[in-house]
């Protein structure tokens, strides 16, 4: 009967409409998930008068991406820095991009870190620092990820060197081996 078909069509339309209005997360297309997962972010605390500090974290991208910069309201400038040893001296330099290969955790813990320059105020334990990571996805399109990084004490060691009995990880380049 035509009426039954019409009723079924109406029911189907209603069901679709309700489904969309409900906005179930399972229906979200995969491209909307964040490009990069940020694990264990933290910022080194400072004393009054210090102009710079560092932020550390572990980044895992869901596709081949690049970290091309960062920003935060707590500092005039935020940069990505790479450390290496030249002529027995430890040196750090700003880099324009850091590769984040798909599904590969990249640690910003020593060889790379986020540098805060021109701090606007002292960073005190208990504070949560808002930051934005500027990224390029696999197609080179810009994306950003917001995060909040808790402040840890100034004396927090980032390198395992301070932990009693922990062997230092290879490749930290502190003994004169050219890096990169």
């Amino acid at each position, binding site marked *: 009967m035509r009426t039954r078909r019409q009723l079924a069509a109406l029911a189907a339309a209603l069901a679709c409409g309700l489904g969309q209005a409900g906005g179930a997360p399972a229906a979200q297309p995969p491209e909307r998930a964040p490009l990069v997962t940020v694990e264990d972010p933290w910022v*080194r605390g400072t*004393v*009054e*008068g*210090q*102009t*710079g*500090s*560092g932020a550390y974290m572990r980044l895992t991208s869901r596709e081949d991406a690049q970290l091309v910069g960062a920003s935060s309201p707590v500092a005039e*400038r935020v940069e990505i*820095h790479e*450390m290496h*040893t*030249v*002529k*027995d*001296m*430890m*040196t*750090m*330099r*700003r880099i324009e991009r850091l590769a984040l290969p798909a599904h590969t955790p990249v640690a910003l813990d*020593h060889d790379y*870190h986020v*540098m*805060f*320059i021109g701090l606007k105020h002292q960073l005190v334990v208990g504070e949560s620092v808002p930051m934005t990571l500027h990224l390029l996805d696999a197609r080179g399109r810009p994306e950003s990820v917001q995060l909040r990084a808790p402040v840890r*004490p*100034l*004396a*927090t*060691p*980032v*390198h*395992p*060197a*301070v*932990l*009693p*009995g*922990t*062997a*230092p990880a290879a490749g*930290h380049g*502190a*003994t004169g081996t050219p890096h990169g």
Partner: protein
Amino acid sequence: MDEAPRPRADLPWRLALLVALIALACAVVLSGLPARLLARPAAVAFHGRDITAENWNPAFALADVEGKPRSLEQFRGRIVLLAFGYTHCPDVCPTTLAKFAQARRLLGADADRVQGVFVTIDPERDTAELLRAYVPAFDPTFIALRGTEEQTDAVTKAFRANYQIIQYKGDTLVDHTASTYIVDAQGRARVVTPYDQTAAELADDLRAILKSG
């Protein structure tokens, strides 16, 4: 038939030899050579680089955060654990000072015999006020020292360390030697500790120096 014992023909030679040896021994002792040999520290195996035999002449003439002049001689009687750095350094310097603090903690009661010293290689930005807040955050017993450019050059040269101030994209960065130095209680430079050595290894080296004297 017994022969009468003949007087030993070589006795005068033996006597002469003995006298000569005694004379030589006196001369050696009087020359002070054994005293010098005994004064040299016994060979010890370190995790870090042993520089005892290189006979550095470590020294510095700097000021502390109260403006008082400080020289290395003032620390005789204690081991000096020295690091160069600057407070704008986000990573290496805090980790180094944290390592010093941890090494002292691992020494237990002997911690009092070790003095941590942080020498800034960025005295323009690292004011006394800033250092007074920064260094004790790692260990309240640590001392921060700063000087003029000439004094800073002199102390890094004395410790065979390097530093270079770079103006880079609107920021001042300082490249610097990340190794640290152990000077024993007699003022002798003993060990260069690479940056990536652990606090436990540093504590081992400190204990070895405390034991050997």
